[in-house]
């Protein structure tokens, strides 16, 4: 009964949030040549189908109406007509050929990534995306934003509920970009409808796709291949900036990286580690091991009282760096982040493990 009232009030709440819901009935046209080609193709096939439907259902409704027994219609007895049968085999074939020609052109164009000016490598992890800019030496992880996580059980949903991340992918406008898509664990699929890009990331293989984005703006998408428990919670945000702004952003990232490397060599205090560790834990680990460290036994072990978290530091570092079974490898995180998250796991939840310093992680890599 309580659940029912909750449901009803939630229902009313949903109806009133209508105000900021954007409506969508049709596919987006998007902001790349590829997405527009796809949209056009989609509309053409759609109208062809509608036209055929009108003819076929029209004939059917006509005979339902005119050839009823109740108005005294007597049944004819024909059951073959070579001409008609020839026609309705031939005409569909022609229609299909007419559809296949533009479709092939679009397909061949969108599979040709050779004219790319820059490359971004996208790696799917359960359940977050990693973006690498090989030429610029930038690499970071993009998680579901905390505001969305907090709102899951809350009737007040933020505007881009489940479509917001902590660190978006930043790209320059009017540049032909090659996306290299792969995965570190199960199959994910990187999809941003406005870019017309959807590509499976297969573990062990690298697929490619490309796009040239014509308009500055923020575009959102989601993982489109079932990848486990939080498949519904790994959104994608692409922040497209002018070429100058993009350059500034790259420079910022590079100096931030230099600073992080420097800070990883110093010795951290336990409090510093715990503070940063809690953040990292909540973004990177809590999906499986839960915010309170209770895990989801037996699939995801608890951190609370874990033998590893209370045991030798080297074992702990090893499993987090390299992964094991369903536990992903986290070597893409920085030394400071890793040291702090492990320290957090070893000290929080009533655990009694030792402190781990960034230098320990660095030497274990």
């Amino acid at each position, binding site marked *: 009964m309580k*659940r029912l009232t909750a*449901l009803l009030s*939630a229902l009313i709440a*949903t109806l009133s949030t*209508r105000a900021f819901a*954007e*409506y*969508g009935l*049709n596919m987006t046209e998007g902001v790349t040549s590829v997405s527009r080609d*796809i949209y056009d193709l*989609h509309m053409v*096939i759609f109208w062809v*189908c509608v036209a055929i*439907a009108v003819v*076929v*259902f029209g*004939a*059917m409704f006509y*005979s339902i109406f005119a*050839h*009823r*027994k109740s108005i005294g*219609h*007597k*049944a*004819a007895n*024909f*059951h*073959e007509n070579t001409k008609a049968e020839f026609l309705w*085999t031939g005409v569909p*074939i022609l229609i299909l050929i007419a*559809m296949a020609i533009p*479709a092939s052109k*679009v*397909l061949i164009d969108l599979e040709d990534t050779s004219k790319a000016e820059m490359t971004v490598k996208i790696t799917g992890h359960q359940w977050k995306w990693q973006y690498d800019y090989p030429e610029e030496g930038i690499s970071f992880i993009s998680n579901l934003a905390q505001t969305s996580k907090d709102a*899951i059980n*809350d009737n007040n949903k933020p505007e881009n*509920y489940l479509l917001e991340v902590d660190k978006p992918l930043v790209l320059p406008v009017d540049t032909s970009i090659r996306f290299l898509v792969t995965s570190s*664990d*199960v*199959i994910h699929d990187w*999809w941003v409808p406005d870019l*017309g*890009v*959807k*590509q*499976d990331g*297969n573990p*062990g*293989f690298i697929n490619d796709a490309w796009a040239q984005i014509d308009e500055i703006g923020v575009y959102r998408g989601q*993982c*489109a*291949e079932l*990848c486990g*428990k939080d*498949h*519904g919670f790994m959104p994608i945000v692409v922040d497209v900036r002018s070429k100058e702004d993009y350059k500034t952003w790259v420079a910022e990232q590079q100096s931030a990286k230099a600073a992080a490397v420097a800070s990883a060599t110093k010795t951290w205090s336990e409090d510093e580690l715990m503070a940063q560790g809690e953040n990292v834990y909540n973004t990177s680990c809590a999906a499986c091991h839960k915010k309170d460290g209770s895990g989801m036994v*037996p*699939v995801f072990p608890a951190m609370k009282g874990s033998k590893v978290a209370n045991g030798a530091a080297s074992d702990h570092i090893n499993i987090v760096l390299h992964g094991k079974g*369903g536990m992903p490898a986290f070597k893409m995180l920085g030394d400071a982040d890793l040291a702090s998250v492990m320290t957090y796991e070893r000290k929080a939840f009533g655990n009694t493990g030792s402190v781990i310093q960034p230098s320990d992680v660095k030497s274990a890599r």
Partner: protein
Amino acid sequence: MTTATATSHDDHHHGPEKGIMRWVKTTNHKDIGTLYLWFAFAMLLVGGAMAMGIRMELLQPGMQVMDPHFFNQLTTMHGLIMVFGAIMPAMVGLGNWLIPMMVGAPDMALPRMNNWSFWILPFAGGILMSTFFMDGGAPAFGWTFYAPLSTTFAPDSTDFFIFAVHLLGFSSIMGAINIIATVINMRAPEMKLMDMPLFVWTWLITSFLLIGAMPVLAGAVTMMLTDRNFGTAFFDATGGGDPVMFQHIFWFFGHPEVYIMILPAFGIISHIIPTFSRKPLFGYSSMVYATASIAFLSYIVWAHHMFLTGMPVAGELYFMYATMMIAVPTGVKVFNWVSTMWKGSMTFETPMLWALSFVILFTIGGFSGLMLGIAPADIQYHDTYFVVAHFHYVLVTGALWAIIAATLYWLPKWTGKMYNESLAKVHFWWAVISVNVLFFPQHFLGLAGMPRRIPDYSLQFADFNLISSLGGFAFGASFILLAYIVVDCIRNGKPVDARPWDGAKGLEWTLSAKADYHTFNTPPSRELIENESQHS
């Protein structure tokens, strides 16, 4: 009746054994058909209850009734149970009941194996359902169980799932062998292949799909089993394998599988429309050839489910062209049905209403299928609710529709009684409206960008999900009425004539009102066969 049927013990001459053992030991095609149909109906309710759970969670944004892991279990088990537990067994049940009567045979060719085909199912279903109670829960990797989510990353219960699939495979293969042997070897001597009713033809061709496809599925799950437990590397790139290889093997089975579910449905519709149009089926032989072409094509289009896996572009082009071809023979069928109605003398008893709505709604599902087959467009459709809408239009308003139509159409022959026509009409309109409220908005959701298999979604998808869920609850409730109509018919239905539909043709209608336990102990004559054939 002559006594030409020899049974190895005489006690079987006059009727079934008494009590529960009748059902356990039975070798009678009608009993086995009944078992299959009730089993399928029970599974429909179980799978449907899971769908209700899915729709409940998707009623509004946020997680209300379950956690994401359980949601994935529901989606997966819903798909598996509906496909392997409801639709396929229902079709086999109809085949069991009808094929011997339609070809003028006393029973199936291999009656004891027929019993086993059925009596494996409850065990397979039991093993599958038991995974809900195991550590880590039921399968949560989708009914397509892509590696490595289903291999390296799945809990121990997965191995029980694998064995359940093996058992389901045995059952289907034995069932298919039986149907082939029956149609080829038990057919009345006077009946030529081109005299066979379309339901028999479609089932014969479906059997070849089953025998070709199910063993490949068995191979796929066997490779999963060894990858999981014995260190093979079929689907693991670290050992030189490829997760995408799993998808190729799966869809080599999976695509024929979807036609396994629809071809018998085509057969059913090809009986009902001529009956209520009072006119012979238009284009009998082109129907047969179209069925065979669809079956053939279904073996060579599988990778249209895999356009985004990074196949070389030549592969994508090939699979796109081959997929589009299927529209041609399917179109022939649709046009033939419409031409059958053309200049008929139509009446609209409930089976006909289901058949007519089948033609429209299945065609809509076919159109969205064609759109999905256009590889570049599939980039935007793939793994969205547009796909979910597509396959529910062909599966629910296609396969399931035909099963309901068949049940109502042949119920008088099975029970000797008539169902309540006005209640059945109410049920029809209730179902046909709610099912569209349920699935039509899912097209919009998919186009607007909602991925499938997600337990929660962003606000822009809220409206259509709400509508879809409400439609879903209404549609689910309609099955309670259906159950009532069927049970009421069995218990209190009015007795009918041997041929309750005046336009009906087919050997089954020449039997007594309620078909006897053993029928066609002597094969029907040439004259009878010709009179009752679909093209006379």
